[in-house]
Structures are given as structure tokens and as C-alpha cells.
């Protein structure tokens, strides 16, 4: 009897000790491993070609686009560049709920990092290429507030731009009729896209962990993820249902989903993809339009796209590789912290319009904390040449005075190390952590505010709470 009692006590003790020691997952199932490998940056395929943009992978176009991206002259008040809202040091976002430029944008500024992999752009997918996307903000009265004629004149009158433009796209048309100006406008977008295509995510701590596992490493003997993050990873792969939408190596399915978000004060519920699809079909710069460089006009995404009322209120799944620097979150910056985002998905409330595709998760507050901890391990530095993360050299002091900007001839660009296409996610997992541009990048994107002499705007931006 005594022996039986002691045996029971020992067994219970051993089990309890086992529970206590078992801080990480004891092992991963083969399904979990497969899923982890599918999310691994090393599974990222090579950058897909963009046949609609003949200069997409041309280094000279990237150098030209790089200059345009940081050029505030392409705006109504000479103070707004792409980099005003897409700030390199914030993973090409602005830290605001909704973008602020000439006016206030309707939605949150998304990151550009890894965007070249997406078939759709904007939260509502109202553009279908990186280059057609780049055109819209230039003419949006709340953003750059400029127009295609001004862009045409900028390229025509800036000798450096003209020298960059003509070898890529042919002689600048002398006529300023609508068709000629539209063509130049589209080409400006194609150069900006060539630059943006080079902004790709590097490996995160999660990737280092998967790399460790792939080499047969012990799931627990590693220093990439701590116990809470490992518990969060298990939830992420399973009960939290995150990978239903945040899947693949960029942690997005590039699709549109209604997740029942509330509109911010003063705004109607976001109609999202329902209207975005209508807009992209009507966009003259879309894949099927006259400005595509693909003679086959083979546009699978646009041709086979599905419409219907289930798109009401649906917005695009964002990548989770930039969370560390891109708060506030969601399409209208509804949530300041990841904890709020996770609470929202845990509750999955009924949507105001359409219906919420997410289902309540019933996770405990500890589980939500673990999940949040894991998300921080997904944060990945940008795997691009640091030179691309600041205004081109020799350019940042000049623009407001109208002096010629960066020399962008094909020869100069091809010598530059800044235009080589990086290959993220090498299988050996040793891709280096890129040092984030600190001072240089900050001065360059703030220069796009202050160089114009529009002190009021620059001051307003600085005072905006950076939540």
C-alpha cells in the first residue's frame, strides 16, 4: 500500500516536473513543420517578372525612380515626395493612422517592402501593378496634389531627369497632347516601380528558427525564440487561425477579407474591395490598358478576378513582416497596438457592412500575450542596399531651388552598387541584418518637407502624435 502510494506520488511528481520543464513545444508535428517552412523567407520565390513594365528590372530605371521617389517637386506645394509618407526608417510607412500630405488620406499608409510580389495594390486593390499604383498619389488632391502635365514638365525641364528618361523610354515627346503626356506619366510610374521592386524583406528571428530546425537542430536548444514566442508560434500555426490569411513567406495571401473593423469617427464603413475592383477595372493604366508593355495582354489576375457582395468591406491582407515599425495597424489605423489587433480578432464582432469572415477564437489573455510575443519575432529588416533607403546622394540639398537633381545616366547608374537586385532569404539563412538607415534617412525624408520652405506643413507633421 505504501509502495503504491509512493509510486503514485513519484509519477505525479515526475509529470509535474515534466510540465514545468517543458517550456517550449516538446516537438513539432510534421504538419506544423511543413507550415513553418511555407512561411520561411527561404521559401520566397524569385521576384516575379512584371511584363507590363519593360524597365521593371533595369538598374537605370531604378536609379531614376529612386530620385523621383524622394523628389518633392512632384507635388502641388513642392513639399510632398513619395518618401513623405513612405519613410524608409519606418519600413516605408509614416506612423500615422491615416497618411498626411497636402490633405489627409482616407487610409493607413502601407509599407512598400515586398510589395512587388502582390498582384493588387492599395487596401482595396484598386490598382494592379506597382507602376500604376505609383501614379495615383501624384494626382490625389490629398496626397501630392500634382498632375501628369506637371510631371511631364518636370522630366522635360530637369536635364538630369531628361538624360535618365530618354535612354529608357525613347525621346521625350515634344507635343503636350493628352496621349503623349499620359505616356510620359506612365513611364514615370514604371521608373518608380523599378526602384520599389528592390525593397524586399530580409530574414527575421522566426526565419532563423526555421533555419535552425531545417538543419536538424533541437526545437528547444536555440536562442532565436523564447518560451513565450514558441507558445505563440504554436498558436499562430493552429488555434489562432492566423495562417488562413497570413500565409506564404510574406505572411499574406494578397487577398481581400472583411474582418469587421469599425470606421474611425467621421467616416463611413469602408466598402473596400467591392469598390476597389470596380476602380481597377476602369483604370486606364491597368494590365489590359494601352500603357502595358506586355504585347500579349495576358492578365490572368484581372481576367479571372471574382466579384460579388462578399467583397463588401473586404480589405487586403497585409504582410506581417513589417509589424515592428508600422503601427498603427489596419486599413484606417484603427489600432495603435498589436494587443488591440489581437483582441479584435479574438472577439471577431459582426461587421457593420458585409460580414466578418473571422470567427471568435476564445484565446485566453495569456495566449494573446504569447501570440503578440511571437509576432515580434516576424519583424524583418529590409534586405536592400542601404543606399536605396535614403535620398540619392547629391540630390537631397537641391530640389527646392530647382537645381538639377541626381545624375541618372545609364552609365552612372550601372556603376552604382545601389542598384543590384538583392536576393532575400538565402537558404543558408545567413543573410545579414541590414543596418537601418538612421540619420541620413531621417534627414532625407524630412527634407522633402522642409526644403520647400513650407514651414507650416513641416511643423504640423512634426507635431502629429507618432503613435
Amino acid at each position, binding site marked *: 500500500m505504501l509502495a503504491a502510494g509512493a509510486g503514485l506520488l513519484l509519477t505525479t511528481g515526475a509529470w509535474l516536473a515534466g510540465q514545468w520543464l517543458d517550456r517550449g513545444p516538446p516537438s513539432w508535428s510534421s504538419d506544423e513543420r511543413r*507550415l513553418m517552412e*511555407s512561411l520561411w523567407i527561404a521559401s520566397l520565390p524569385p521576384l516575379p517578372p512584371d511584363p507590363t513594365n519593360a524597365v521593371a528590372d533595369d538598374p537605370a530605371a531604378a536609379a531614376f525612380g529612386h530620385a523621383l521617389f524622394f523628389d518633392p517637386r512632384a507635388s502641388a506645394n513642392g513639399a510632398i515626395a513619395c518618401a513623405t509618407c513612405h519613410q524608409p526608417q519606418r519600413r516605408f510607412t509614416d506612423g500615422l493612422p491615416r497618411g498626411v500630405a497636402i490633405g489627409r488620406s482616407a487610409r493607413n499608409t502601407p509599407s512598400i517592402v515586398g510589395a512587388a510580389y502582390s*498582384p493588387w495594390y492599395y487596401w482595396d486593390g484598386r490598382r494592379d501593378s506597382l507602376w500604376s499604383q505609383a501614379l495615383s498619389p501624384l494626382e490625389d488632391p490629398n496626397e501630392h496634389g500634382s498632375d501628369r502635365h506637371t510631371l511631364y514638365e518636370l522630366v522635360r525641364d530637369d536635364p538630369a531627369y531628361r538624360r535618365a528618361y530618354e535612354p529608357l523610354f525613347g525621346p521625350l515627346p515634344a507635343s503636350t497632347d493628352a496621349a503623349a503626356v499620359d505616356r510620359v506619366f506612365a513611364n514615370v510610374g514604371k521608373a518608380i516601380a523599378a526602384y520599389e521592386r528592390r525593397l524586399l524583406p530580409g530574414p527575421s528571428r522566426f526565419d532563423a528558427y526555421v533555419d535552425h530546425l531545417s538543419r536538424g537542430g533541437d526545437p528547444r536548444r536555440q536562442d532565436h525564440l523564447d518560451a513565450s514566442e514558441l507558445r505563440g508560434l504554436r498558436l499562430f500555426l493552429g488555434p489562432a487561425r492566423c*495562417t*488562413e*490569411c497570413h*500565409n*506564404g513567406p510574406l505572411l499574406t*495571401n*494578397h*487577398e481581400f477579407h472583411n474582418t*469587421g473593423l*469599425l*470606421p474611425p*469617427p*467621421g*467616416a*463611413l*464603413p469602408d*466598402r473596400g474591395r*467591392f469598390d476597389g475592383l*470596380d476602380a481597377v477595372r476602369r483604370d486606364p493604366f491597368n494590365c489590359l490598358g494601352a500603357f502595358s508593355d506586355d504585347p500579349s495582354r495576358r492578365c*490572368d*489576375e484581372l*481576367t*479571372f*478576378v*471574382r*466579384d*460579388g*457582395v*462578399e467583397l*463588401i468591406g473586404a480589405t487586403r491582407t497585409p504582410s506581417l513582416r513589417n509589424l515592428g515599425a508600422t503601427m498603427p495597424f489596419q486599413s484606417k489605423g484603427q489600432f495603435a497596438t498589436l494587443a488591440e489587433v489581437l483582441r479584435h480578432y479574438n472577439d471577431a*464582432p*459582426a*461587421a*457593420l*457592412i*458585409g460580414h466578418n*469572415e473571422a470567427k471568435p477564437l476564445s484565446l485566453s489573455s495569456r495566449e494573446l500575450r504569447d501570440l503578440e510575443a511571437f509576432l515580434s519575432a516576424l519583424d524583418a529588416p529590409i534586405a536592400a542596399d542601404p543606399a536605396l533607403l535614403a535620398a540619392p546622394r547629391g540630390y537631397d540639398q537641391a530640389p527646392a531651388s530647382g537645381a538639377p537633381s541626381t545624375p541618372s545616366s545609364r552609365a552612372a547608374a550601372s556603376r552604382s552598387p545601389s542598384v543590384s537586385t538583392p536576393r532575400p532569404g538565402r537558404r543558408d539563412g545567413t543573410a545579414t541584418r541590414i543596418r537601418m538607415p538612421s540619420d541620413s534617412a531621417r534627414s532625407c525624408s524630412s527634407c522633402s518637407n522642409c526644403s520647400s520652405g513650407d514651414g507650416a506643413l513641416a511643423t504640423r507633421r512634426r507635431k502629429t502624435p507618432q503613435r
Partner: protein
Amino acid sequence: MAVLPLLLAAQPALAHGGVVAEDDLCVINIGYLKAHFKMFVPARSGHREYCEDIPLRGETVFVMEYLHDGLSAAPIDFRIVRNTTGKGNFARLSDIDALPDLDAVTVSRHPSAVAPGVYTALHEFDDDGEYIGIVVAQAGDKRYTAVFPFTVGDTGAGVWPWLLAAIVILQLNFWYWTRRRRRPHAAAGVLAALLLAGAHAPATAEEYSAAGDRFRVTATPSLQPLTINRMHAWDLVLTDDNGEPVSGARIDVAGGMPAHDHGLPTQPQVTGLEAPGHYRIEGLRFHMPGEWELVLTITAGPASERLVLSLVL
């Protein structure tokens, strides 16, 4: 029992004019055009949905989700007026028409606009009180109007008798509708069972097949191994129950994830190929891991059958 039709006939007036709670769904009747009607005060009560009265004052979102396609193309005009008719929740269109100056009591006017799919409007109420919403939809050359009285904020004890009456009506309504709907439910169940009985789809690594009573289909994805988030095509071989290839069939593709209650993210298209019985489905993409179904509705001559290919990604 004889009283039931009478109550139902009287019910629209009791239940706030054009807005009625039907079978758990708040419905606005604009002539014969129906929409799911709801109101929200997001800043104060988040996702809480109101149907007939709003207990809180504040910025209110009005939503009409169309239950009738006709509304997607109809210009809709929405106006909110103070309820000065003296009729309270009994106010009707004739009472509105009798008002001497509609503009004088209008607190919010949303000019006529076409809103495909869903109509939304925003108004911030500064005062508690009784209001009337007026929705006018122009369908073709006809105008349809819905008038719905509602209250904003704390309305005191005056509403209780009406609330009680509404509950009784709702309960009767509920009985009425559940009784009416029982039969079609059973029929749908039998139909679904019949449809599903014929098809089964054993999945192998590279090839998917399904066989029914009339047709047999073997499908090979162009993407090997099959992965999520990539646009690709599938090649199909269609044969009849004797194994003879079937050309010239019409094949409609649908499908989705049954567990998530959603369809395919794309609208695939099928073309017949030259080889007998060969077809190609273009424009397929699966955007989530998990169990998917590809539902092929095959029509060749008089024969028609629905085959389901199941796959796990």
C-alpha cells in the same frame, strides 16, 4: 387564429413604418424592394446593431444591405426629419406629405446617389428625440418610398407599451415564419443529399478525380506541387461512364472552403481543348491552406451532373 392575419396586416405600422424585424433580421421595405437595415453608433457602442431605436446620441451609421438586386442600380435619396407629425411611431408617408415644410424639419439630407451592393450614410445626432427616416429609391421610372419613425436617446417610459406590443407581434411573426419555412428546409436537405451522393473524390499527390453516375473526371494542376497563392490552370479529362471521352461539354466551375463558408477568390473559366475529352480550367488560385472543394457542373447533351473534387492544401 383568425386574428393572426389581422395582426400581421397591422404590423408594419406598429413596427416603425417601413422597418420591421423579420425572422431575426431587421428589414426595410422600400416598396417591393427589401434591404437589411441596421444602425450603429461606433464611437459609443462599437459593433452593437440597432434596428428600430437608438438608445445613444452620437455619430450614427445607417446601413442598408440589399436583399433585392434592384437596389444596386437605383439612385437612393435618404433624409432624416424631426418627427413633428404628432403620430409618433405611427407616422406614415401621408403624414410626411401633410407637413407644411419638410426642409424646415430636415436634420440631414443625403442626396440621391447610386450605391451598388450596400447603402451607407452618416449623421451625428445632437439631440435626443423622435425622428423619421425617409428613403426614396428610383427603380426605372418608378419611385418607392420607405418611411420609418425612430427615436434617439433616452425616451423614457413612454415606449414600454409599444415595446411589449412589438414583442408579441415579433413572437407571432416568428411562429408564422418558422411554420412557413419548415417545408422548404426539408426539401433542400433532400436535394443536397441527392447531389452529394453521386460524387466522391479520392485525392492523390498530383491528380484529382471524381466519378458520378454519368461522368468521370480526372484533373491535373499545372502547378506541381500544388501550392497556395499562385494563379494556375488545371487540365481536365472528361469521360462518360463507359470511359469514352466527352467533348463539347459545358463545365461550370465553383467551389471554395466549406469549413470557412467562402468561395473561390477567382472566377475560373473553362475552355475545351482539341484532344477529345480534354478541357482546361484557367484562373484558379487557392488563398488559404486547408480543405478546398472544386465543384464542376458538367452538362453534355441532356445529361448534367455535379462532381466535387476535394483537395487539401
